[in-house]
């Protein structure tokens, strides 16, 4: 076991502080953990990715964050009120210090949002915010041009940065706050946040060491981990072996093939959860004329057995889907269930005049999603039963996305997780009418286009009455289902595993940002 209870050299302490304070013998708790990859940079605005957000939650604090029930919990913002349709006022926590010792104020929030609006990755989702102003030391006001119902969702992405620390110029004369994708910026190597952990050592691709911030503001946090050593282990089998052998105490993700093995091991525990990442296939109407006929698309949708894939291929590690929005999202329609019905599929094909089927090409990645290549094979086999011959090609993710952007196959697989945890985002990227200028429908490889739905989503994004908004988004989801705009497969489940004494269940969540600051490691 690597959780070492090292007695801090109390003798040294005694010698040094002999006269001052009585040295309390303190046990240090170290957590060794392994993810599949380490953060690409220490600059949390350099890339919008899961890895960077996981780092953000360890070293910074957001204004608000999601709790387990997908509700907002106050963090650096203690209170908020909607002043009018376009203004949100937030009260900030007092007495918070950054790792550098600087005090956290409203100016830091303003500075951070302005930097987010410059970041190539974040500026699109922060576009609705017109301005941020510091009303006083601990109050900020967000103004939007039009009413925007998702401001709090955006606030989960605002991790106030230490504006003083990141201002000025570094040794090379470059501004410390510049955001550089491929280079050595100051912010990519230095970090000062308000979060529970400071980065004390980092060797890219080898390990990152975090030490608990002594003056962390959240004194109610039950977290008792003093030090985290994070090692990237990309090989699934090795990551699991490292946990089983006791070399590490916490791993994620857990490959589905090893779930049973970890569940059956007395020294380890497994936590799984229904995820929010939808896996789906697009049917390209521009490349295949038959896909313009809704009956053909419906036939395809009826021919796919989502439950079979989730049960057999994914070994229960997925939730079969009949829509994009997972439960908990505003647009989720309760009644939509997978509609596998082979006879109905064959009937529809006959009605559309394609009784003898046709030939299509299909493409999927083979190392991006859980079992992606196998899922594509299963779908191809299912389509054979409505006489559709599939020419399937699977590619590593490094090559796949270029092909995806060029829409080189008739059916292409994609998985999507809404950055805003909201249904509108799913529609905007996956099923909106493609428009290169506005960026709408950027990943709509089906070329499905229904201007009415686009208008409805635009309207929903101005609707501050959340119930009315949900109703609109549900209408969108229902129409997409009725017209079989795409073929939803499942929401990929999430899994984490740890040593038995590491209580990960309370800190993991559906966004896959474990709140490690609150992690409790029990003494053995």
């Amino acid at each position, binding site marked *: 076991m690597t959780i070492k209870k090292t007695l801090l050299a109390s003798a040294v302490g005694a010698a040094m502080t002999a006269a001052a304070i009585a040295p309390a013998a303190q046990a240090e708790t170290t957590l060794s953990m392994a993810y599949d990859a380490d953060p690409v940079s220490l600059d949390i605005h350099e890339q919008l990715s899961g890895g960077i957000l996981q780092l953000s939650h360890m070293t910074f604090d957001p204004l608000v964050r999601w709790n387990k029930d997908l509700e907002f919990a106050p963090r650096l913002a203690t209170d908020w009120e909607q002043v009018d349709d376009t203004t949100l006022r937030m009260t900030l926590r007092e007495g918070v210090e950054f790792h550098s010792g600087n005090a956290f104020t409203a100016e830091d929030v303003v500075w951070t949002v302005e930097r987010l609006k410059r970041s*190539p990755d974040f500026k699109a989702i922060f576009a609705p915010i017109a301005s941020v102003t510091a009303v006083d030391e601990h109050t900020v006001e967000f103004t939007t041009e039009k009413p925007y119902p998702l401001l709090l969702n955006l606030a989960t992405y605002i991790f106030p940065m230490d504006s003083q620390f990141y201002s000025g110029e570094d040794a090379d004369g470059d501004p410390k706050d510049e955001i550089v994708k491929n*280079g050595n910026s100051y912010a990519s190597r230095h970090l000062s946040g308000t979060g529970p952990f400071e980065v004390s050592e980092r060797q890219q*691709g080898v390990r990152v060491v975090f030490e608990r911030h002594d003056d962390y503001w959240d004194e109610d946090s039950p977290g008792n981990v003093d030090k985290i050593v994070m090692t990237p282990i*990309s090989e699934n089998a090795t990551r699991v*072996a*490292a946990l089983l*052998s006791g070399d590490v105490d916490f791993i994620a993700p857990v490959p589905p093939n090893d779930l049973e093995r970890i569940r059956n091991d007395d020294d380890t525990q497994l936590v799984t959860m229904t995820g929010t990442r939808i896996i789906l296939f697009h049917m390209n109407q521009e490349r295949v004329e038959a896909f313009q006929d809704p009956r053909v698309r419906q036939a395809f949708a009826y021919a796919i057995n989502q439950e079979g894939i989730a049960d057999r291929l994914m070994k229960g590690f997925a939730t079969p889907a009949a829509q994009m929005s997972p439960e908990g999202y505003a647009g989720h329609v309760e009644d939509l269930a997978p509609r596998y019905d082979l006879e109905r599929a064959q009937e529809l094909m006959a009605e559309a005049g394609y009784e003898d089927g046709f030939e299509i090409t299909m493409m999927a990645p083979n190392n991006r999603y859980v079992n992606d290549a196998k899922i594509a094979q299963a779908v191809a086999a299912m389509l054979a039963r409505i006489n559709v011959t599939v020419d399937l090609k699977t590619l590593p993710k*490094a090559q796949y996305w270029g092909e995806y952007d060029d829409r080189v196959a008739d059916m292409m697989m994609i998985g999507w997780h809404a950055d805003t945890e909201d249904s509108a985002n799913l529609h905007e990227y996956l099923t909106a009418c493609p428009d290169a200028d506005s960026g709408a429908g950027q990943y709509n490889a089906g070329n499905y286009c229904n201007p009415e739905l686009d208008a409805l989503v635009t309207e929903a994004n101005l609707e501050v009455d959340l119930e009315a908004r949900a109703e609109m988004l549900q209408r969108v989801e229902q129409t997409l289902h009725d017209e079989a705009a795409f073929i939803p497969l499942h929401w990929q489940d999430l899994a984490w595993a740890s040593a038995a004494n590491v209580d990960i269940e309370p800190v993991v969540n559906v966004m896959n940002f474990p709140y490690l600051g609150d992690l409790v490691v029990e003494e053995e």
Partner: protein
Amino acid sequence: MIAFLIKRLFHALLVMFVISVIAFAIQDNLGDPIQQMVGQSVPESERAALREELGLNDPFAVQYLRFAANAVQFDFGYSYVFNEPTTDVILRHLPATLELVAASTFLIIALSIPIGVYSAIRPRAWLSRFFMGVSIIGISIPVFLTAIVLIQLFAIGVSWSPFPADTGWGAWLNDLISTDGGMPAYGRGDPVPVFGTWETNFASLEGLTYLVLPAISLASIMLPLFIRLIRAEMLEVMQSEYVKFARAKGISLRRIYFLHALKNTMLPVITVGGVQIGTLVAYTILTETVFQWPGMGLMFLDAIERSDIPLIVTYLMIVGLIFVITNTLVDLIYGLVNPTVKLTGKPA
């Protein structure tokens, strides 16, 4: 001698040039580095700007000439992933790989010579047959599987109880076929810094325990090959006239085996060995991946996964260089062992 080395230097440059051209020519098939740098929801306009900034839109010739102009000044570009010069990245990962290769080479030499010689001298002994049988199995198991099995046996541990555990003999037999585990399953632990970016695992006992399993897996590919090679060569030498004559003269068997016969056995072994060490560097990619050993192989696989083209090109060129260097060394050693071979083709 000097002429030979200069010739080899030109070889090395030629090899590196050819590799860099090939690597550049296929870079479009290595994936889109932009995709790896930005989040999925980033609009196409931002991607295009970044692509332009990195010069990825320029024609092949322009990109290659820009690279070559810098490369002759030993500037091989910046890694997209590590945000550092690629040579720095590789130099930092090189010691780990070299140590792993060194440990495996040591294992191979220490085991293959005695086993090979023994099974040549006593071809019919049951021990020789056992070694030959095991080496057949060893050569046919992929290194990936060997590594996973080693981790399961010695890092995680297995407990089998096919025998009744409540009887004394049953418990003893169960213990015999079960393992405790406890060996480190991944990584290098805390290697001791030597100087600069060079950290070593050889300096402490704990460091060595991290080396054991990866080194055994890596050695498992070459070991059977060398045992068989040494055995075959030795058998042949034993049939030669001079060995028969030495026997007739009454020279002690030990002297014949280990002085006269072994020396001639080693000639082809050195040639093959040199080439195989280069191959060993290539096999480190698999071993390092399974053991998360932070060396060049793991780095290379990571670079491929993230389409880090500058790093891929530099790595390939350096591996080409390593091949040329090991071949040169082999030729030099060969000249020492067998003075009748002349390296430059001129009278020595």
